[in-house]
């Protein structure tokens, strides 16, 4: 996966300054700006961390500590789509492991890995708080609920 040069556009830099202005200390905008950086550059590489650190006047080590603490920041290239299956208690009771095994077989990768064509990263994640519709998963921005193997297949087919 090739990455664009690690630099925000002038519009994005204006957005960074707007976000920084919302907090009593500019540092409060670090998580939102890291979300922006990931959306722009695909994942948060060490280079991206150093760039973001520069925007905040923080040390790269501080940004690295933050990036590695949270699950939603990817430190490696991720697939074009992220399929995150909840395997906490309510989903477990509703067959989440069967759903995970089904997706592993269909995609040919283990949980935690990305398909060779870079299409899908498959994850097992903790409670996404949609237990009323277990088993469920998050596909990029959306929640997909009341999963069955058939429903999973239909969802996968639509991911380009």
């Amino acid at each position, binding site marked *: 996966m090739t990455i664009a040069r690690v630099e925000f556009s002038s519009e994005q830099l204006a957005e960074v300054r707007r976000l920084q202005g919302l907090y009593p200390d500019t540092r409060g905008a670090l998580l939102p700006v890291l979300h922006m950086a990931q959306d722009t550059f695909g994942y948060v590489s060490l280079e991206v961390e150093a760039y973001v650190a520069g925007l905040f006047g923080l040390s790269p080590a501080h940004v690295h500590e933050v990036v590695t603490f949270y699950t939603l920041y990817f430190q490696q290239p991720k697939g074009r789509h992220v399929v995150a299956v909840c395997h906490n208690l309510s989903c477990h*009771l509703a067959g989440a492991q069967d759903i995970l095994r089904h997706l592993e077989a269909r995609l040919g990768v283990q949980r935690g890995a990305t398909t060779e064509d870079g299409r899908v990263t498959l994850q097992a994640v903790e409670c996404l708080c949609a237990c009323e519709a277990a088993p469920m998963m998050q596909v990029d921005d959306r929640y997909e609920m009341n999963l069955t193997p058939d429903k999973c297949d239909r969802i996968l087919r639509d991911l380009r």
Partner: protein
Amino acid sequence: MMAELVLMRNFDRSNSHTISSYRSAGGYAAWEKAKTLEPAAITDEVKKSNLRGLGGAGFPTGMKWSFIPKTHTGPVYLVVNADEGEPGTFKDRYLLERDPHALIEGMLITARAIRSALGFVYIRGEYVEPWRRFSAAVKEAYEARLLGDGFDVVVHRGAGAYICGEETGLLSSLEGKKGWPKIKPPFPAIKGAFGQPTIVNNVETLCCVPPIIERGAAWFAGLGTKTQGGTRMYSVSGRVKKPGVYETSVSITLRQLIELAGGVSGTGRLKAVVPGGGSAAILTADEIDVTMDVDGCKNAGTMIGSAGVIVMDESVSIPEALLVLARFYAHESCGQCTPCRESTGWIEKMVHRIVDGHGRKDDLDTILDVAKRGGGTTICAFYDGAIGPYISYVEKFRGEFEALCRP
């Protein structure tokens, strides 16, 4: 059995997330009324209503507000904890998506009570749709000049970490740091976000505030028990016929609540129930006549927590259920305190070994010993939450664990 709907009153209205729908249902009338009240009078009303925090700790809300130092002249912040993450809980997602203006109105009234000019709403990173819905509602509220006229709201997205639901972990995260909880005291009301006095309240808690102001503390208090007013939203999942969110009086019993959710599915025979989210001690089938308020659950040796009810029928393996939770705690421990960081990891390994059939019978005593020694020794309540399941699952279902262990 369903009580009058207070929190979910607007859910079935079309476009309930919009300001026009909210207003046509009488929304923002409580805010108009609150503007005529002195801040201290608002806090007094909430104290008298017996509203208790609905995020997990159950602390009296009005009392929390009154901890803001009276002599403080600098900024005071209101922070909304929308970092819903407790296993088995999904009520705040409904409120953010279906009645975001109720939260904004609750924030406006609360901000007046605590004299805050700036509020933050910390929404878990995975909640993209709730975040969009709530952000759109905030935009509407600015256009209607409800916001921006003495009180501003910043909507903040988290990035995936259960510990940020703990209020001081949340504040660290809001400040742009890893979500490490902070040593208390000082409590956030004295020194919170960005070093200033801060009140952190849960979404559902704040959504109770407009009805309290509009209809009075006595009415709200009368909906509940002697020590807790109101209704609350119970998230019911697991082996029930109709999983979902149910709003009812906090005086309901767990047995009645399971009936409300259609009764036990699977084999139809109840084995155990988690009454208040993953971190609550488990109850056996003959312990479900407990009332689902803060004190009722406390007296039964468990906790109502976030009111996430997870039902297990007879076919469920309790050791496997504990393994799921043990893995969760090991994954989510922030690593700051040694007892939590080490015990959550080792207990997961031991439960794993037992479930795989390689456990030794004395593993069970080791788990109990490790769990009990760590309680109360850490900076935040995370580990105290983790030992709820460790201890109760092993003690109440010991035979099931022993059956898996090597002789």
